[in-house]
Structures are given as C-alpha cells and as structure tokens.
C-alpha cells in the first residue's frame, strides 16, 4: 500500500487545487509573452509588431525609426511594466500572508509612501552628498533610498500593529495613514528647496507612471526586484503555515522570526525598487492576489508565481490603455489602476467587513 501510494507522487484529490494552480500558471505565462510582445506595438507611433517579428524571423532587419522606437522606447517600457507589475503584486501577496489579512497592501498601508519619501529625500538631498559617496551609488541612489524607506516603514507598521501574533487591521491602516501624512509633509518641505529639474522628478511621484522608462532605470531596479521575486518561493511553505497562526506555524517547524525578517526585506526590496522607478501605482497588489485566490486558492506555492505573472499582465494592459486613451499624450498609469482598482477594492472591503471589526 505504502509503495503504491509513493509511486503516484502528484496524485490529486478533491479539495486539492494544485493541478489547477499549475495549469493557471502555465496559461498566465503564455498570456504574458503574448501581452508583452503586443504591448511593443501599441502607442502614439503605431508599430506593426507582429509583422516586424515575422520579418525578423526571416532575417530581414528593421528600419532606423522602427529600431529606435522599438529598442529605446517601447522595450525598456515593457520590461519596466513587467518588473513593476510583478513586484507590486508579489509584495502584496507576501504582505497579506505575513499580516494574515487579504487587505494588507504595501501601497495602501503606507509602505509605498515610505518608499516615496526615501526616494524624494534622495532626489532633493542627493546633490548635497559628498561627491565620492554619490559616485558610488550612481543612479542606484534613488532606488536604494526607496528600499530603505519601504523597509523602515514595513518594520514600523508590523511592530505597531501586531501584538502576540495578532495583527489589528485598524491599527495597521491608521499607522499607514500617519506614515503617509508624514511622508507628504516632508516632501512638501523638500519641494521648497528643490530646483527645477528636481521638481520635475518629484511631480512624477504623485501620479505613478511608466513614461520616461529608460534602460538605466531598468538596470537599477531589476536586481532588487529580481532578488525579491526569485526568493519569494522560499517563503511559500512558511506563509502557508502562517495562515494557521504564528504559534501553529512554529509548531510545524517554521522559524517564524527569521521568516518575518526575510519577508519584510523581500517586500521592501520589491516595493522600494518599483516605487523608485514608477512612483505610486496603486491597487495592483491587492486586486491580483484576490482574483487568484478565487481561482486557484490561497496556496502560496502557486499564488506567488501566478501573482507575479498576472501582475505583469495587468500592468502591461493598463499601460497600453494609458498610451492610447488620450493619444498622443500619455495618461499616468496610476490613474488607470486607481479607476479600475478603487471600486474593486471597495467590493473586497464589503466582503471582508468582518476582518476590520476584529
């Protein structure tokens, strides 16, 4: 009997959604490739991307204009969309698992504000840094500062809102509001001492946008986001056990303190880097995991990769809408995610009202 059962390692039973998790992950991977290629063709200048691809496969090159639009404008923007979208939704998923609450989203509870504050400080005060230090950081200064801001905020929020393994959502949200207000006030002060070019950089934070994507931005943000994304699967088993509570997780062999430190670093890295290059893009981190939990269940082994994929897809689609909605101008993508995500968030809130009263 024991031998037989060991020969069917992946057998699946009623109530076991692993199979569905695998299928959905594969489907999302295919959809992401398709969306990513398609997004290269959408924008103020039309680019017949599938035709170009066919030509390319037949060994025929691109025209000069085509190659500039494709490689210098569309491509970095697409890569940035993928990075930011997956960073935001994976951060949301980890945060929700850590706080044991489907409403915890880095943007919503002030981690985004913390990251933005770090970035703003770096933009404005960066010019006062000793030249040697500034040279060491180079263009990574802003993402690094955003990471530190996100990390400090997450740590603070966790300390303030969690007592004896139980997180109070009300305290968490109120503390997030305080951090947001503080961040707003400090940015207000910094705006007075900012010069013109710094000011232009700052305005961009309010909205959240993928416009102005460059390969430099991609290179400075990619390492932090990729490290966070690639280490996320290591958290999956611990996050599953955490769903039963901190003490049960401990009884099941999870080193809870270490896991929490690790999760907070991953969230801070991904959120910090995403905010540093794209500003505040809201609601992705709460909507994506919620949709996925409905279809494949809350098992983090599938939820984390699927979140990364769906987050990237949704951000690419929102960005395509941003580019054509009021063409030839470029609508900040944060506006689009807010228009779509706001009502959806209210809907989730209504369904989870019990959690807020706890």
């Amino acid at each position, binding site marked *: 009997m024991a031998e037989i059962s060991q020969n069917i390692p992946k057998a699946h039973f009623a109530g076991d959604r692993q199979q569905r998790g695998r299928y959905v992950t594969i489907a999302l991977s295919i959809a992401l490739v398709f969306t990513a290629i398609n997004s290269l063709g959408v924008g103020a200048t039309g680019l017949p991307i599938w035709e170009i691809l066919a030509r390319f496969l037949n060994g025929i090159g691109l025209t000069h204009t085509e190659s500039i639009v494709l490689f210098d404008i569309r491509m970095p923007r697409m890569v940035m969309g993928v990075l930011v979208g997956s960073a935001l939704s994976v951060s949301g998923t980890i945060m929700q698992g850590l706080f044991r609450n489907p409403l915890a989203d880095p943007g919503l509870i002030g981690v985004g504000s913390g990251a933005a504050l770090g970035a703003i400080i770096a933009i404005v005060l960066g010019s006062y840094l000793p030249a040697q230090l500034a040279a060491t950081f180079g263009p990574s200064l802003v993402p690094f500062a955003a990471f530190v801001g996100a990390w400090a905020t997450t740590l603070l929020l966790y300390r303030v809102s969690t007592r004896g393994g139980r997180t109070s959502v009300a305290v968490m949200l109120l503390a997030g509001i305080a951090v947001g207000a503080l961040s707003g006030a400090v940015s207000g002060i910094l705006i007075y001492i900012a010069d013109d070019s710094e000011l232009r950089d700052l305005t961009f934070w309010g909205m959240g946008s993928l416009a102005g994507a460059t390969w430099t931005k991609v290179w400075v943000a990619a390492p932090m986001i990729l490290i966070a994304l690639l280490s996320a699967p290591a958290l999956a088993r611990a996050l599953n*056990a955490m769903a039963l509570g901190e003490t*049960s997780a401990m009884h099941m062999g999870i080193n809870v303190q270490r896991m929490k430190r690790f999760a907070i670093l991953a969230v801070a890295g991904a959120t910090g880097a995403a905010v540093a290059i794209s500003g505040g893009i809201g609601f992705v981190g709460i909507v994506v995991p919620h949709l996925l939990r409905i279809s494949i269940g809350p098992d983090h082994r599938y939820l984390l990769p699927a979140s990364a994929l769906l987050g990237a897809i949704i951000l690419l689609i929102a960005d395509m809408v941003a580019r054509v909605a009021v063409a030839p101008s470029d609508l900040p993508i944060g506006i689009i995610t807010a228009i779509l995500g706001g009502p959806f968030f209210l809907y989730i809130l209504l369904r989870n009202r019990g959690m807020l009263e706890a």
Partner: protein
Amino acid sequence: MFNASHLNVRYGQRAIIHDLSFSAKAGELTAIVGPNGSGKSTLLKAITGEIASSGDISLDGANIRSASPSELATRRAVLPQSTTIAFPFTVMEIVRIGVEAGGSASPSLALRALSRVGLAGYEGRTYNELSGGEQQRCQLARVLCQVWEPTRDDHPNWLLLDEPVSALDIGHQLEVMRIARDYADNGGGVIAVMHDLNLTAMFADSVALMRGGEILRQDTPQKVLTNAYLSEAYGCPLQISTPPADGNIPYILPQAAQIHQPR
C-alpha cells in the same frame, strides 16, 4: 518521556505557574484536568515552547529549548484549543500543510487522516465554513499527519492536544479519544487537556489534576479522580461511583441534590 521540573511561568507581573513538576511517558495517555483558568493551557504552552518559562523541560532527555523548531516539528505536533484561518483554504489543503510539516511524501496520508477523524468527503469544503467541531477535527487530522507514525527509529512521537474533544458531540468524542488511545498503545506519547472527567477516567493512563497553577496530584485515574481531590480542585460536591460493567473505572456525577428533579 516528557519531563518538566521546577517550571515557572509568568504573564507580566502575575505568576501563573510556580515551581511545578510534570511528566508524561511514551506509550501512555496523560490527561491534564482542572477548573477553568487553573493553568492547563499555560502548562501545555510552556512544554511546547510556545511561551517563555523557566525551569527544565526535556523531551526524551533532550532540552527542548535548545532544539530547533524544525527538529521539534518531526517529533511532536500540537493541537491548539481553536484555530482561525486567514484565507479560504479547503479542508484538504489544511491537512496537507500538516503532511508537509511532518516531511511525509505520501499524498494519501491526508485522506487517511480525514477518514480517521470522520471527515471523509469533506476534502473540498472551505475550512472557514465548517462548524466548530468539524474545524477541530480537521485540525486534528492535520496534527495527526505531522507525526503520523507513533514511533520513528525507536523514538516515540508525541501528540499534545488542548481540549481535543470539548467542541465535539458524544460520538466524535469517543472516536477522537480512541485515536489518542491507539496512538499511545502503539508506542507514541499523548498529552491531552481534558474537561470531561468520565472520558478521562475511561481513556487516560495518568491524570494531572491542576488548581491555581499547581498540580494537586498526578497519578492513575483511580487514585486522582477521588472525592477528596476533585472537590478540593473544583470546589463543588461530586458523587463518585464505578459503573457496573467495569469495576475499577471511576464514574463522576455532580451531587444528586443539586440536580433538577424531573417531575
């Protein structure tokens, strides 16, 4: 052998447990009984390492404070008094978390555990939509999967259960007590916090009777479940006899004078 000696637990300024000694043998079912607030859960939490305490706590001779969570997880599983879950996991998914914690690769273990606790057919149900008793049995299935074999490499495994049957109907109470009994009979150790003194008398090998953070007495049910000890612990008159079928199992009822007389 689970051993605690000179155990002290305090919550803030309040000493809950003071200089307590407790032990439980593998191959036996050890029950912890006592009135509400007497420190039963606190004692259990102290010996699982869940709350800070001073004194010696050892599991088969090894200090549990120096063991890592993952080492302990393969030796003992803990059923809390109740468990709330943050996300819409199915019954099957919950039990599988226990299977993985125990390091087993057998995918059918979850099914066997579920049918053992009487939840066959519940695999696809959402945990949060179960009744309290069904949730407790689902958690028991998860805990069983974590340490499925009562012994491993000649070492006993342990089940630590906080009120495993309090939320259950009489049929499932018996069924769960039988599961615990079987585990002990096959060489494993079971420590269970109990409220029902008659079930304790029927199933336990050893009873620790607590009051006010102390163990009044720990011994066999026959020696502990006596009028003198029980009225001292619970502070109410009880009537103790033995059922006709089995001559030496104590049988405990509240004093007849206090019972409503049917007309």
